[in-house]
Every structure is written in structure tokens, then in C-alpha cells.
């Protein structure tokens, strides 16, 4: 018996629940050299803004213990070039496409989302209101319930298809932000974006990132991400896509048990580009061994004390 790996999020069916995370798989072209993207449950693009962005000057990544810091600064080709140059490639891929949308103002979020409305290939958008690496936009929307609801509602009004909101862990109550996003019309959550952190070069006495701080990702943050997934799961019935420090199928099982319906793999791709495929494989084995029929049988099945 092959366990059923299909999951459903906001009416969209995914062949398997393992996606690649925004900013960690570009627009798909590079990964496709390594394996067919159809093996992924789906792919989330790098954040797209209205205008092209260069991002911060290098160095914009730094290695840390069991993780990394990044302050890429939302470098991306902009919505126009995205539609013109990247969408045709994505249109040929047999996988779910989620476009991550970022902006400095509500108007920018709305404008990017509006233009994406006409792009048939994408299955949903993921609103990045949680990027810690830009001065304007991003995290400031995601740290205030009022602004969260406002930006989500504004996008909701112009975007007809499913809308995921990606939450920040850098808040007092992620549950409050999730509720606000739900009130604004979110269909699902991605939990979580990176954790604010920094590192210092003690020889030069300068920060190891030109942006002075960045987002911490990788195995180091997995316990935080699990707690955040659990917190959102306790607060809302919307489906959750779990992300943060997942490297193998064991990590994946932890996320499902805490309430995630699907997963994204970010930093682990850098070390193991085939990580998503191995995770799907490992999950199937786990289900088989535990005589479970479907991956959905795991979701939220944590037996708390």
C-alpha cells in the first residue's frame, strides 16, 4: 500500500506536501537542472516586488552555528520581468507554483497581486509580511495586527485565488497576527519566516552583513518554528505550511504533528538540493511503517501533556 501523499490547501491539491521555500529556489530554473520539479509538491518563488530590486551589497549571508544569516534584501527581477522572463519557464513545470509577494507599501502589495491575478500558471500567492531584511515593508506589516489585517484585506480585494500569508516569528504573539490575517481574508498561513539575528566579525569589528542584521534560518531555528506552528494551529483552523529548519523526514514529521498540512524546505536545499525528494521518500516510509493511509492522518496529531 502506497500512502497517500496528497494534501489540500485552500482548495488546491498538492501531489505531495513538500514545497521549496521562497528565496531558496530562485524562480525554479536552477533546481530544474538537478531534478524535475514535478517531484516537488510545489515551489514558492523568491519574493516579487513592483520594481526590480538589487538587494543589499555583499556580504549578505553569513554562516552561523547550525544555520545562517541572510540579508539579501529582497533582490528580485520585479513583477514585469518576472511575468515576461520567469513565468514562461514556470508554466512548463508540472508542479504547484506559489508566487511570494512583497512590498514597501500596501499599494505595492496590491499592485503586484493585481498583476498576478492574470497569470494563469500560479496556483496561489504567498504574502510576505515578515521579511526582516528591508527597511520598509515586510516585517512592519507582519508585526502589527492592525496593519496585517489591512494589507491582507487590500490584497484579498484584488486577488481572486488562494492567498497565503507568511508570518514572522519576531512578534510577541504570532497567534494575534494570524487571527488578524484570517480576519483580512487569508486562506492559509506559512509559518515561519526567518528570525532576526546578527553576527560580528571580531577581526574587523564590523557586522558580518552589510545590512547589520539579517534573518536566521536553518536547523538552529527548528524548535522555534515548531512552537510557532503549534501556536498558530491552536489559534486558527486555517491550513498551515510549516517552514524553518527542516532538513530531513524526521523534522518533517514533527511539523505535521504540530499542525502543519504542508512544508517548505529552505536552507536545507543549499546543503542538500535533493532534500525535498528524500523527505517525501522518508515520510512515505514512516507512514507505511506506522500503517497510516495518508499524510493528512499525521496533521496536528501531537498528543500534548
Amino acid at each position, binding site marked *: 500500500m502506497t500512502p497517500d501523499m496528497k494534501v489540500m490547501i485552500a482548495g488546491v491539491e498538492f501531489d505531495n506536501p513538500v514545497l521549496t521555500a521562497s*528565496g*531558496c*529556489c*530562485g524562480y525554479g*530554473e*536552477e*533546481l530544474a*537542472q*538537478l531534478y524535475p520539479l514535478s517531484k516537488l509538491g510545489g515551489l514558492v518563488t*523568491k519574493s516579487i516586488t513592483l520594481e526590480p530590486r*538589487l*538587494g543589499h*551589497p*555583499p*556580504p*549578505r*549571508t*553569513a*554562516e552561523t*552555528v*547550525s*544555520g*545562517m544569516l*541572510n540579508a*539579501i534584501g529582497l*533582490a528580485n527581477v520585479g513583477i514585469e520581468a518576472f511575468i515576461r522572463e520567469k513565468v514562461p519557464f514556470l508554466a512548463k513545470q508540472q508542479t504547484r507554483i506559489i508566487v511570494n509577494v512583497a512590498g514597501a507599501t500596501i499599494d505595492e502589495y496590491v499592485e503586484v497581486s493585481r498583476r498576478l491575478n492574470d497569470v494563469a500558471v500560479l496556483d496561489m500567492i504567498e504574502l510576505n509580511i515578515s521579511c526582516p531584511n528591508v527597511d520598509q515593508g515586510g516585517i512592519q506589516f507582519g508585526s502589527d495586527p492592525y496593519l496585517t489585517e489591512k494589507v491582507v484585506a487590500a490584497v484579498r480585494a484584488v486577488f481572486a485565488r488562494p492567498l497565503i500569508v507568511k508570518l514572522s516569528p519576531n512578534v510577541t504573539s504570532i497567534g494575534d497576527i494570524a487571527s488578524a490575517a484570517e480576519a483580512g481574508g487569508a486562506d492559509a498561513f506559512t509559518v515561519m519566516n526567518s528570525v532576526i539575528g546578527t553576527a560580528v566579525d571580531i577581526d574587523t569589528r564590523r557586522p558580518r552583513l552589510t545590512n547589520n542584521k539579517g534573518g536566521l534560518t*536553518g*536547523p538552529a531555528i527548528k524548535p522555534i518554528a515548531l512552537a510557532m506552528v503549534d501556536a498558530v494551529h491552536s489559534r486558527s483552523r486555517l491550513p498551515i505550511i510549516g517552514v524553518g529548519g527542516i532538513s530531513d523526514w524526521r523534522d518533517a514529521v514533527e511539523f505535521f504533528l504540530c499542525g502543519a498540512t504542508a512544508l517548505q524546505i529552505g*536552507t536545507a*536545499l*543549499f*546543503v*542538500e*538540493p*535533493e532534500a525535498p525528494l528524500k523527505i517525501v521518500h522518508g515520510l512515505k516510509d514512516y507512514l507505511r511503517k506506522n500503517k497510516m493511509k495518508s499524510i493528512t492522518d499525521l496533521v496536528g496529531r501531537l498528543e500534548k501533556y
Partner: protein
Amino acid sequence: MTRPKCETVRLIKRRDLKNDYFSFTFAPFSAADKCRPGQFVHLKLPAGEVYFRRAFSVASVETSCGDLELIVKVVGRGTRILAALRRGDATNLLGPLGQPFKLPRRRERVVIVAGGVGFPPLLFLAQKLIDRGHDPKHILFFYGGRSRSDIIERSRIKKLGVDLRIATEDGTLGEQGLVTKPVKTFLQKYGDNCRIFACGPEGMLKAVNELGLALHVPGQLSLEAPMPCGIGVCLGCVVPLTAGGHARVCCDGPVFQIGEVAL
């Protein structure tokens, strides 16, 4: 361009060269025959304190048996872990990655400028050119280091028959001073019909870049950058271009034309 492979390989040979340099031969790597000079592989370190892969230029290949040689200098945590690898140990290799050197025409004079740990891809380049029929005497191999002990594999280079010219900062081997000094002298005299191929520390690359631009000698530089992914997806390894914008060292490079990058 060949698709990169992600394979588990074993260390089949290790040679301890002097001054913290090591030669590691891994096999079998199914894409060994596809590796071109200037390309690199992204090596996973054995489970330990370092999480990310490390990039190393291909130093040579034995295509018949899938052998791939890397020449590594121990400089930090990652390379220290590598140095502890023993024969038979397995590791994972992703590659070949990046843009290779564009090869010169046969009658062009090749001016190689190798600085310290920039040596390995240029050894591979020289070997490849000779294999393809380039006259070794038309390959000038400038090789610089701080001191005598920084100049490794001398007999191997000599065996190629190239015109080896060594410079060390402390004068313990070859000409005294920075390697860019004899390069400049040479290019000023014989710069026509030359192609520069350089890899080494940032300062050296900067000097070579300026030399090439000033003397109108075309050529290519192989750059380094911290590389989280090595395959172009993280945007962590960018360098600014003179024409504006950023290029990813891992996949738009590591080889760039002289004048292309704002060094």
C-alpha cells in the same frame, strides 16, 4: 553545459603537500569527464560542526575512472574538517558548477596568473590546453606566493613544459615581490595576442584586472565568494558588475571577463 550531479564519492587518494595544502582525489564521480577548467564542485563536509558545503575548483580529472582531484589549503573550520578525511571516507559532491574559462585560440599566448590558493583551476587549465594541442611554451605560468612554501606542485607544473615564472613576496623563491610585477613587465612588452587567466587573492585579481584594462589585454578572472548554495538559488554570492547590477559568482561566474566585475 552539463547538468550538475549530486553524488556520494570516496576519498581514494590524499597527498599532504607542504604548508597546509592537501591534494584529495575523490572517485567515482560520474561527471568527471564533464568538468572544465574554472568549474568547481561543492563539497559536503562529514557531519560535524560545519553545516554548509564548501566550494573547490577542479584541479584535475582522470576521466577514464571518474577521479576528481581537488587541491585544498586549510584556512578555517571547513577545510580543517576536510583535512581530517581519511582514505575510504565518503562524502557528497555537487558539480560541476559554474562557468568555465573560455579557452583561447591555439595561437594565442596564454598568461596564467596564479596567486596562492588560486592555483588549482589554473593547473587544470594549463593541462587542458596542452592536452588540446596548445604549445606549452606559449603558456606563461606566473605563480606568486608570500613565501617559498606557498608555491606547491612545482615539479608537476614544470613537467607540463610551461614557462613557469615564480615570484614570492619575501624573495625565498623566484623573483622578489608581488607576482603582478613580472606579469606587468611581460604584458607591457609582449601584451599583443595574449590572454590572461587569473585566480588568486582579491588584491591580486584587482591588480590583474587593472593591468588588463590599462594594457588592453583581454582575459578572465576566477573569483571567490562565500557560497551558501553554489547553484544560483540563494543570491548570497553576488558581486557588483561595472555595468550595474549584481552577478552570482557561483553560476554567472566564478569566471568573469576582465573589466566585467567592479572589484
